[in-house]
């Protein structure tokens, strides 16, 4: 099966991102494909490389980056949601006149069309949120 995943909440505050990660790992282990993970609403906050969680805690952002690189998963941060919440890549920062960027490795910023496209292409669309 080909899965498309939507994550609507940021890391740590809600369990949604953890559950999505566990689901993706279990799906990959079972031989399924994770085609795309689309981060919407506060979910865009999973894509900042500025997080430094306590040493005895998991690093949710890094887990997403690692999973994506190991299994060639497309991690898409919604541009409109990211602008409201302060997630920037170098191009966007330049365009908006922002003096820095915080996007994490393996994440890319793109439009909502990627979410709809994910739903069309995938066999199953799942939503994790609050």
């Amino acid at each position, binding site marked *: 099966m080909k899965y498309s995943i939507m994550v609507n909440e940021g890391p740590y505050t809600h369990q949604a991102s953890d559950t999505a990660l566990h689901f993706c790992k279990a799906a990959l282990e079972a031989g399924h494909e994770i085609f795309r993970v689309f981060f919407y*609403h506060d979910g865009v906050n999973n894509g900042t490389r500025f997080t430094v969680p306590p040493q005895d805690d998991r690093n949710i952002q890094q887990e997403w980056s690692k999973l994506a690189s190991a299994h060639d998963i497309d991690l898409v941060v919604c541009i409109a949601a990211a602008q409201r919440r302060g997630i920037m890549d170098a191009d966007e920062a330049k365009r908006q006149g922002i003096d820095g960027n915080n996007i994490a490795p393996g994440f890319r910023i793109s439009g909502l069309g990627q979410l709809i496209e994910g739903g069309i292409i995938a066999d199953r669309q799942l939503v994790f949120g609050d």
Partner: protein
Amino acid sequence: MATKKFMFLNRKAPYGTVYALESLEVVLIGAAFEQDVSLAFIGDGVYQIAKNQNTDGIGMKNFSPTYKALGDYEVTKLYVEKESLEARGLTLDDLMDLTWEDEDDDYAEKPSIRLVSAAELAAVFDEQDVVLSF
């Protein structure tokens, strides 16, 4: 691309959280992909399409007029759950007048809101390919 049945499930009130607004942004983009799109308003989601929203006092943008534009994007199926409306003491009269023009029927103006029972709506859900929840 294939055509799929997309359902946008709205269960949260507007303004208290951003979900209603950002859901609407997805619907508008989704319409461009020429999919078979429906919206459902359940629970506090029915408040999203309440009449007479006026946000001057809270300094937020009133995005309720956007629902009126959905017909122009060929988004014409807005299911409202009867039980949710009744629990809140609301009737169809309390909701915005949302319509679309039917090209195939001499551009007749038709209502977009479909008042349905929970059982009827359950059957609609069962036919969907993709359900996006907000």
